């Protein structure tokens, strides 16, 4: 598809409706065009998964890990994430309560929201599409081992699986076990293997693996610029 040929755009009903509602909201004084622009800039500027730095830091600095488990919102500040941005009371859909779920060699956490798509957006970016689907939400709470196997994660029966159904105001982040073979690594090296999927709990960090499992991508007709489908 070349850029110099103007395409006749298929404007969808959703696009029309969104524009109509935004115009009316501005005309009625509910919010201003400037506020909409500012929030858009904030949303577009969000890092894909800054929590990988938090995990890496927790792996290398026991005092930080303690602080992160006790007060994750304050600990987020230490890796550059202020949960009160951009409104002064946070991103309204995400609230400002974070709970870090620490894995151990015998305990593995996996996060879902069976009621909608609650997700720690400020520190983990936008939720992946599959996380929002009824299919994942229906099944992960009932047959977690089977669903994790579909993600390529096979856990031994000795490991307790703990599903976190994130249904209220807390947001949850999995702190995986630091894998063997990473001795002496810098925080930066470690952060590279802590992918989004590891922090949802559908994958485990592995030396040499710095991306989520490659899945099919449903492409947008008119994608937003710089949109990442996840680290």
């Amino acid at each position, binding site marked *: 598809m070349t850029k110099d040929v103007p*395409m006749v755009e298929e404007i969808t009903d959703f696009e029309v409706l969104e524009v109509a509602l935004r115009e009316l909201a501005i005309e009625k004084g509910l919010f201003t*065009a400037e506020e909409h622009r500012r929030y858009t800039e904030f949303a577009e500027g969000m890092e894909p998964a800054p929590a990988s730095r938090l995990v890496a830091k927790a792996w290398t600095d026991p005092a930080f890990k303690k602080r992160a488990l006790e007060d994750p919102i304050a600990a987020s500040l230490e890796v550059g994430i202020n949960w009160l941005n951009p409104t002064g009371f946070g991103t309204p859909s995400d609230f400002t309560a974070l709970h870090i779920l620490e894995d151990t060699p015998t305990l593995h956490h996996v996060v879902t929201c069976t009621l909608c798509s609650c997700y720690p957006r400020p520190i983990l970016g936008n939720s992946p599409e599959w996380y929002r689907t009824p299919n994942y*939400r229906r099944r992960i*709470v009932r047959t977690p081992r089977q669903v994790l196997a579909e993600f390529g994660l096979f856990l031994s029966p000795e490991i307790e699986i703990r*599903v976190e159904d994130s249904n209220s105001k807390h947001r949850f982040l999995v702190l995986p076990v630091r894998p063997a073979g990473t001795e002496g690594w810098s925080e930066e090296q470690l952060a590279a293997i802590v992918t989004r999927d590891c922090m949802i709990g559908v994958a485990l960090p592995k030396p040499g693996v710095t991306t989520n499992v490659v899945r099919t991508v449903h492409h947008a007709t008119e994608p937003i610029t710089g949109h990442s489908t996840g680290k």
Partner: protein
Amino acid sequence: MKQAVERPGPTNTDIMGDPVSEMRPALHRLRDWVYPDQIDHALYRAYMKQSHDVGGEPDAPGIFEEKEEEKWELNTFVDCEVLGWRGIWTSEERRRIGNVDIGRTMYCGLPYYGRWLWAIIRILMEKQHITLGELVERVHSVQERAAGRTTQNPLEAEPRSTGNEKTVVRNRHHKDAVGKGDPQCFKGMAGKARFSVGDKVRVRELPTILYSRTQEYLRGAQGTIARVTYESPAPEDEAFNREDKKPEWFYIVRFKMTDIWKSYAGPSQDTLQSEIVERWLEPHST
């Protein structure tokens, strides 16, 4: 009045036959005119079930995909967030409207952000910020503007004026939460927490009416308080903008999988946690 009853948990054999499954994603009954004596309690519950409450519903393995976001989806998300920022609604009102009020057919049929958009329509109408006449005319005129647009000449919002922000009715929350966050802004308002870490509790089996964030698959299940979390208005109040109601304590409750699903085939040590508001919990001793 409340008696401990044997919890009728789902088994492998009754999964496909329960009325709630028949309701998904739409009515699978040929009959669309029903007499009062034809609705028993199970079917009544299926009709009252909230469309967002999908945990445990039977489903076959799906394909887990990533997706790029459309421009209108980002704009919709931002509209919703800015409406929260400026005190037009709380996220709980948005979730009630876009995930439950919308009904099962549209819940399963519209794209994710299509439901967010629908929620904007409802809230602006319910709170009388716009009239339906205004909206219908505006959508019609935007459709006309959109005709023949190209990728080099995209559809843009072109508000005709700027409204007086001072005359708009807004909630208290968007001011009270500044500098504190939510739920931190409700700290100290709920009184003494009824439960402590380690307490045995049972999720109450209250009827499902309009809105709740206590999942049906946990109703009646026994668990243990894993953490006393925060104070916040109950979803049943916040979803209807009842800022006059007292906040309550929330708890992360831990359940054994085998206490939730009678048919759970995994190892007996597997667990599940969820965050439940105090009114939905009762003490339970074994």
